[in-house]
């Protein structure tokens, strides 16, 4: 006869524990870590570039970890801007996990009191389930992807503290239904701030950075 054993353990408990340790060691050094999520082509790298320019102009330091299935196109683009970027190629894995971050951190120069942006794999499903040591998640959606994303992928919006809506200059051309999108975002994630960005002109980036700075203060309080 079999014996029933009550377990009730989170299946990703090992990842959660590693992520917690990463977060503790980074935040003890005053590093603010943002996990940037979004589908392929949403504008994650453009957002990070726009923020990086402003962060450096303000005298702060930052580093970027780029997650991709394969290729280092984004990392090279960031390095051309003089940004300290490190590439993780997951070789097909659909998300970054805490062990991957743990492995690259010693190879990356992350100054005390600096910013760390981690660009996750382009995917609105899997990355939502894995904490990787971040202070918060930021989900990026382009108007070209359509307003239905919060309805189709509510989980990733629910886990995110803010949603950056990119390519807002294309709203009319794409027939973007903003009211429908906003209602979906409010349902999936009542707490999430909606932050528009025009990646071409950089319009909106100042406000996003301001929002991030105040989120950093809130989380440190």
């Amino acid at each position, binding site marked *: *006869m*079999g*014996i*029933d*054993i*009550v*377990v*009730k*353990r*989170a*299946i*990703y*408990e*090992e990842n959660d524990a590693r992520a917690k340790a990463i977060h503790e060691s980074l935040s003890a050094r005053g590093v603010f870590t943002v996990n940037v999520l979004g589908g392929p082509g949403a504008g994650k790298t453009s957002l990070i570039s726009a923020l990086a320019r402003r962060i450096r102009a303000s005298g702060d330091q930052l580093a970027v970890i780029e997650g991709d299935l394969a290729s280092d196109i984004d990392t090279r683009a960031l390095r051309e801007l003089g940004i300290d970027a490190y590439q993780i190629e997951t070789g097909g*894995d*659909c*998300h970054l*996990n805490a062990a991957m971050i743990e492995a690259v951190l010693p190879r990356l120069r992350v100054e005390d009191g600096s910013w760390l942006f981690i660009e996750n794999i382009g995917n609105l*499903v*899997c990355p939502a*389930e894995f904490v990787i040591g971040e202070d918060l998640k930021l989900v990026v959606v382009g108007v070209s992807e359509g307003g*239905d994303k919060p*309805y*189709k992928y*509510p*989980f990733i919006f*629910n886990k995110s503290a803010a949603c950056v809506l990119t390519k807002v200059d294309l709203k009319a051309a794409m027939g973007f239904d903003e009211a429908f999108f906003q*209602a*979906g975002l*409010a*349902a*999936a*994630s*009542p707490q999430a701030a909606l932050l528009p960005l025009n990646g071409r002109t950089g319009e909106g980036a100042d406000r996003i950075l301001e929002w991030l700075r105040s989120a950093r203060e809130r989380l440190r309080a």
Partner: protein
Amino acid sequence: MHEASAAASILRIALEEASRRGATRVTRLRVVAGEATGYMEESLAFFLGVLSKGGAAEGAALELSCVKTRLRCRSCGAEFDRRGSSFACPSCGGPGELTGAGDEFYLDSIEIEGGSEWASTSS
């Protein structure tokens, strides 16, 4: 989805719990997965089958309980299961918001054989 890594984690936890009780076999794995996590039972069962070969959990049956995505209406406060892609409340049509029920993913319990020290507590 990432059922392979999920299956590996399930087996690691199950084998750890089993060995702490001196069990020789794990015969059943009961997993709770929220609808929002999107895990597919067939795929999870497939990877569990592959990854458990040759170990104490080989051939263990998977029982996956799916928890529906639960919403609460912001207008009337009613709680309801999400239907299709809508967030709307079925009673008043108001906007529903996620309650957190439906995004769980954990190993709830296992069935083991050969764990004598716990045999007395089983019914």
